């Protein structure tokens, strides 16, 4: 779990130097395209390109590996669901009746007898998995390469209300503390004879449910303390404030913003005109 906590990349790169507004535009463009594209080939290429970009930007390989591992059960679920049960949806997307079977369960088998896994269903499942992976990986690319304060200023400059920007930055700041607290509580339970190593899934769920009580109470105490601290620092949430750091868009930022917008436009034209990105085309 700790591998998934938020962190900041350790080395300087093209992405760390970008303004958060240009990263927001890039993140938006990638998310939009990933959402629209249904082609598993293009979706897979986009996810792969994004993973490589994350690595180049300094996101740890271990982080990406953990994301992929955590997605595996979801991927397996999607393969089963779409491979066996998604025939109607796939037919509608392809606008044809005949699908390519991979294998069929013997009709005599109870419950699943006659069930057929189709090639198109599997491809559609892969499209959903790649889509999800892309939408997840776009977050570390934008967030891990940006200082929290730069995010706040970038968001305010992008006309997002300061109060929302502040809540967002506070969440990022306290997220790692929350994970630390979970670890401390689990440690305390192990010290009272709890054997996580040999525990079944149901019992584990019950244990996690018990963690919620001290965690929520702790969070309430901390949030009240934070409220007091903020008030004592004259915080009112008013946008009428000054900023220590200035932010301005440079040539690279304009290039990313223009490139992102162009990417969306070209992808939209290609999708509408030639069906590039549609399911079954590529």
């Amino acid at each position, binding site marked *: 779990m700790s591998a998934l906590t938020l962190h900041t990349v350790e080395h300087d790169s093209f992405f760390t130097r970008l303004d958060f507004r240009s990263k927001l535009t890039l993140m938006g463009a990638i998310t939009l395209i990933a959402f629209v594209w249904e082609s598993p080939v293009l979706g897979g290429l986009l996810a792969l390109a994004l993973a490589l970009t994350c690595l180049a930007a300094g996101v740890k390989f271990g982080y990406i590996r953990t994301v992929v591992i955590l997605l595996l059960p979801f991927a397996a679920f999607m393969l089963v669901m779409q491979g066996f049960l998604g025939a109607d949806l796939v037919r509608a997307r392809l606008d044809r009746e005949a699908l390519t079977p991979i294998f069929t369960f013997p009709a005599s088998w109870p419950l699943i007898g006659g069930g057929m896994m189709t090639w198109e269903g599997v491809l559609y499942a892969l499209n959903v998995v790649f889509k999800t992976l892309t939408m997840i990986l776009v977050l570390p690319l934008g967030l891990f390469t940006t200082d929290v*304060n730069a995010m706040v200023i970038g968001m305010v400059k992008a006309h997002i209300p300061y109060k929302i920007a502040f809540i967002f930055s506070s969440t990022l700041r306290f997220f790692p503390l929350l994970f630390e607290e979970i670890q401390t509580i689990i440690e305390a339970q192990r*010290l*009272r004879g709890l054997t996580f190593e040999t525990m079944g899934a149901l019992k584990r769920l019950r244990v996690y449910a018990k963690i919620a009580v001290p965690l929520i109470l702790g969070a309430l105490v*901390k949030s009240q*303390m934070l409220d007091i601290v903020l008030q004592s620092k004259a915080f009112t949430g008013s946008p009428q404030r000054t900023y220590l750091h200035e932010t301005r868009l440079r040539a690279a930022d304009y290039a990313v913003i223009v490139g992102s917008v162009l990417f969306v436009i070209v992808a939209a034209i290609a999708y509408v005109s030639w069906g590039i990105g549609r399911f079954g085309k590529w």
Partner: protein
Amino acid sequence: MTIDHGSPLVTFDNVSYIYPRAEKPALHDVTLDIGKGEFLGLIGPTGAGKTTFCLSLSGIVPQFYGGRFFGRITVAGLDTLEHPVSRLARHVGAVFEDPETQITATSVENEIAFALENLNVPREEMLIRIPRALEAVRLEGTAKKHPRELSGGQKQRLAIAAALAVRPDLLVLDEPTSQLDPVGAQEVFATVRELNKTLGITVVMAGHAAEELAEYADHLALLVDGALVALGAPDDLYARVEYLERCHVRPPQVAQTFARIQQAGVLVPEIPVRLPEGITALKTTAHSYAVQAPHIPPAATVNRDTSLLSACDLTHVYGDGTVALRDVSLDVYAGEYLLIVGQNGAGKSTLAKHFLRLLLPTSGAVLVDNTDTRDLTTSALARRIGYVAQNPDNQIFNATVEAEVAFALKNLEYNAAEINMRVEESLTALGLWERREAHPLALPKGDRARVVIAAILAMWPDVIIFDEPTTGQDYRGARTVLDISKQLHAAGKTVIVITHHLYLMPDYAERVVVLGKGALLLDAPVREAYHAIDVLASTHIVPPQAVLLARALAEEHHADFPLLTPEEVAACFTVNGFRGSFADR
């Protein structure tokens, strides 16, 4: 209750305050003036109203909490009820107890800038104020650092810098040193005093650090049950040792020592409250009276044939490369009471966690009853070794006290009758049986710590490790926990305590292990360890004042005075054949 001030910066006029749904007032009819440039120490037991007093200065009480407020408070001429907290923040800088919660930014300079930004200070002005604030708290060169790269003392100094940058008239610090090791605490006190003297900033500091407040404060205000019961200079107030002890407030050890000497019939014209005056007075008194080192009972002997816990050339390196322990070898024997001391980051908790297999050695080995912990599980070790961590709230996850204590027993698969028997026994031993139906988190902090101890005791462990059990507790609370540890030791348990508070431990510990930067610096009986001043200093630990007074006596009389407590120092003085006495340890 007033002290004559030229022109007060703060006035409390018959102030009473009751929190919503509370039955008793947190502040009760407090009248007080605080002069410009004054350093006021706020003392009192836990629950006396110190935090409420501090919060009322910035208007957070009652504006944030609500409740019923009577009387009037003014700060720099502003009524705290009539002006919003954000307006009062221009005049009142606040520093709180927990260094983690009060820092909200991800860089040092942004932390300082935050209040300035909220107050619409122009950027150019911020660029001038930030380095100045950092310079004032001696944190130059850290502007770009992430606050988590700072030590505890540095974080509190950063919080002070952030408050200071606003250029407040008043700096309010609520127990700012309670979570720091002695050197961190010293850093904070020295910084605050310097700001008070050089910049003339008025300071209100609440805390239990008697020795430091005696040294730095101009005046002390004693709160008991929300009422201001005494106000005066540290020399006057801390000299009233018996009165303070009745109020459950710990006076500086030097004052305690002279009060005991006085009780022994020795003429003490004036009870000193600071160490230098104490040493001078001790030498003067020692010239007038017969002085002889008291009989020190021999230390309890422990069978050292076989060790219960062993660390053999233990080295531990954390994932980020920090070397927390370096070639530490140590044996702990059954029935011992061991104290582990050292600065923050010395490796104390890391060592303890190895005994429970919460951590594994990077190199070397850890043995429990001659079995390598690599071959054991944490849950199996937990049956034998109880670990009471610092914050009880992170160790409570059940809806009733009874369920909390039964939690471990169910995990260990005892039958219902055995569980009931052990729960009752454990709760009765800690005086919690009557509260067994209560939600543990609804109890006061001291009681919550006892619930955790009860839950550990129910497993009948042979060894109990208390990790910083006195942090954040007042003197009474700390003694309560330590008295429990003493009872357990008397019942044959092996007890290990990790703490910075050396002054609390002479009545309990037999053996002391001193760690510094991950290395074992000293392993000696308590008397030897407490007098190894250079070794303690190398890991930023300051011995209790009684030890330093004993050293002064030894220097004066060219004899050995291996004393640890005010009672032992007092027992050196003989009056008409009558000698002050102290209970044999």
